[in-house]
């Protein structure tokens, strides 16, 4: 079994719905004896998993004086950027261009490796000729190449004329190299034709559309155009004032459409209904009708000729970006040979707010290249950290064996753990601990906190302290280090060790015996881990007026305001030996 390193998890108070949003108050226990045992936090409860976090994961709201975990903060997106080129994408572009990089950053559709643009030089026909007979250098094209799996965009018949703005070029190229018109271009072309006017031009355009394979974008555009004209047409027949203009805001059809938008389409204008009835469906490709191609024989033969590795996996298909140039919705990429390069998905930098007071708790630097934060209120700089060390006291018969972390705990044999609380703030802390006398669960271990109440000195300047050290050396503190551990007795109510901004105390634990009734039950996963819930309550004096806890040395004591914070944490001490 893997050795277990001692750990401390802190329960975010947000999981307790009663205390959400305000500092917990009257419920906090003040002593370690039984009265809080009935509502003690059970670290093994199924819900506990969702509220326990290491200290490093937690943030802190200075205004609410409360811990904030990833579940109880609101996030706001500060910047969108491409993880490949680190280009910041304005959020206005997202709506129009989607959440992928629109420059030249692509991932390999086969192996997700980054693709690089490489030039394909056509071999010069006659290298001895210094002056090529054709104008300029031989035509250079570019392809995207994966340096890991050697995939190349030439495999799907795609080459580019320019080494930059690959995204725009790719949108115009079908697999196989045939070019296609983007929606904008098609619109322009249509406009051009209608300007020229005449039936002949329109006929020509419809012919062109039929000649070109209908892709998703074309079909949608055709359908939209068709329905728009249909919505306008019956109106013209019914009403006399249609000549006033169908596109104006005052036209009844526009009005009814707008009304439908607001009413969610439920309350239909009876007139609109009758109009809808008069509409017909698309009947030609030009109007957006697409016949289903039921003949899949070519696909089947292709499948026959290929093996399993030639077909695209579901992850590969899922990672494919929506391709508006796809011929039709049936027969989406099934073979590796039809997968297209995947433009990088954009990432975000987010700032975090307290959901209660709306203050910003964490705000990254807006520039993509910097990893610094402008504001970052981590819990570690507000609440004491707890570290656990096992203490091996000498037994009556001989010196102690060195304590090894991860050692199994002997059942029913008292063990001592040194808990070191380190104060990160510039005020001295008053700490009160509470732990149930028996751990919850099927195998209750006995827990005694030998010193449940103590003060920790402020986190003052290290150098100030170093200068003061000499005076202290003679008094209380030095006595700890003077002798070896064996000379020390574990005393109830006494601090074990004290330093500049830290205090160590002893917790005595009698691990439960993991004896199971034979044949009745089995040990559940991690049931042998000795975890003790502990209620921590800290009190300190902050400067009044809600100001941050600054170095309050020269300030008037009267202005100080008493603050307190209380939370549950779980100390994982080790595994209990079985059998």
């Amino acid at each position, binding site marked *: 079994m893997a050795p277990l390193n001692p750990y401390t998890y802190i329960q975010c108070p947000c999981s307790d719905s009663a205390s959400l949003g305000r500092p917990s108050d009257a419920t906090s226990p003040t002593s370690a004896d039984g009265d809080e045992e009935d509502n003690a936090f059970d670290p093994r409860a199924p819900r506990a998993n969702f509220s326990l976090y290491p200290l490093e994961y937690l943030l802190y709201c200075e205004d609410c004086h409360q811990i904030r975990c990833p579940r109880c903060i609101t996030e706001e997106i500060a910047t969108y950027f491409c993880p490949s080129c680190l280009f910041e994408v304005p959020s206005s572009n997202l709506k129009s261009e989607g959440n992928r990089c629109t420059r030249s950053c692509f991932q390999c559709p*086969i*192996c997700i490796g980054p693709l690089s643009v490489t030039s394909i030089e056509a071999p010069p026909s006659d290298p001895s000729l210094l002056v090529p007979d054709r104008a300029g250098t031989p035509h250079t094209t570019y392809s995207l*190449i994966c340096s*890991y*799996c*050697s*995939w*190349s965009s*030439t*495999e799907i018949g795609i080459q580019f004329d320019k080494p930059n703005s690959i995204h725009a070029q790719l949108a115009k190229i079908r697999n196989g190299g045939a070019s296609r018109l983007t929606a904008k271009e098609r619109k322009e072309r249509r406009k051009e034709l209608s300007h020229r006017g005449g039936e002949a031009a329109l006929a020509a355009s419809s012919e062109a559309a039929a000649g070109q394979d209908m892709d998703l974008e074309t079909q949608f555009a055709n359908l939209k155009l068709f329905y728009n004209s249909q919505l306008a047409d019956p109106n013209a027949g019914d009403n006399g004032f249609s000549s006033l203009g169908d596109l104006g805001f005052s036209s009844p059809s526009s009005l009814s459409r707008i009304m439908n938008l607001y009413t969610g389409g439920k309350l239909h204008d009876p007139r609109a209904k009758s109009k809808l009835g008069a509409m017909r469906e698309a009947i030609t490709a030009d109007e957006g009708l697409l016949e289903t191609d039921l003949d899949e024989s070519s696909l089947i033969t292709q499948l026959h000729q290929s093996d399993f*590795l030639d077909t695209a996996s579901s992850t590969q298909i899922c990672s494919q970006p929506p391709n508006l140039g796809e011929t039709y919705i049936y027969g989406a990429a099934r073979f*590796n040979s039809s997968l297209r390069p995947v433009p990088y998905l954009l990432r975000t930098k987010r700032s975090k707010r307290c959901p209660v007071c709306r203050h910003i708790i964490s705000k990254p630097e807006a520039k993509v290249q910097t990893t610094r934060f402008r504001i970052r209120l981590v819990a570690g700089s507000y609440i004491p950290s707890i570290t656990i060390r096992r203490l091996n006291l000498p037994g009556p018969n001989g010196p102690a064996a060195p304590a090894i972390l991860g050692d199994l705990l002997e059942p029913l044999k008292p063990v001592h753990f040194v808990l070191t609380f380190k104060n990160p703030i510039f005020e001295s802390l008053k700490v009160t601990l509470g732990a149930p006398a028996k751990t919850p669960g099927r195998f209750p271990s006995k827990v005694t906190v030998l010193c449940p109440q103590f003060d920790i000195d402020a986190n003052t300047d290290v150098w100030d302290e170093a200068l003061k050290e000499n005076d202290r050396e003679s008094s209380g503190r030095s006595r700890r280090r003077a002798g070896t551990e064996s000379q020390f007795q574990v005393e109830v109510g006494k601090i074990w060790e004290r330093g500049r901004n830290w205090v160590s105390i002893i917790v005595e634990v009698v691990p439960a015996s993991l004896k199971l009734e034979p044949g009745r039950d089995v040990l559940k996963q991690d049931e042998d881990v000795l975890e003790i819930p502990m209620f921590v309550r800290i009190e300190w004096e902050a400067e009044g007026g809600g100001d941050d806890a600054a170095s309050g040395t020269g300030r008037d004591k009267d202005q100080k305001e008493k603050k307190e914070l209380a939370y549950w944490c779980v100390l994982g001490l080790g595994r209990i030996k079985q059998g």
Partner: protein
Amino acid sequence: MSSKRHSILPAVSAGPKPPVHFSSSITIAESALLTGTNLITISSESVIHPRAKLDSLAGRITIGRRCVVHERTMIGAIGTSGKVTEQAVTLGDYATVEVAASIEAGNTIIGEGTTVGVGSKVGAGAVIGKHCTLTPHTEVPAGEVIPDFTVIYSNGMRRIDKRGVADLKNKGQARQIDVLRRMIPTNPAKFA
């Protein structure tokens, strides 16, 4: 440095000195390790990096033209079978064996222009085709036959390289060798 290393590892340096057949244009670092009892042939313009190990105990080792054998590679490792064959390992022209790759002995063939990636393992008797790429940490089982232009990537997935850049790669290899010859002091006499 290298002499020190030999004294620390007497078991390695005490191996039999194999008969060698070197082209005059090869580059072989002094600290390369050549052991075994069978002939080791290295053809023209190939480069053997320092601390590459070639072991001909299980048969002859033949390295083609313009090959690059990187550091800490093990060519001719006696595999689990321990069989001795006439030809242990053959590297085709323009083959590259990258750092810490190992190629087991036993009629193993690496084709022309093939790259055996960092830390890869090629089992005994495997035949790897021309212009293949074994990406780092690929393992080719013993006796496997890999067709030409295969790319083995991501835990054994395979595909065919259709870029058609074999000639370009060979040209690149030649250019790289030009640089390496200037960087690596050669001492073929040590092995003669």
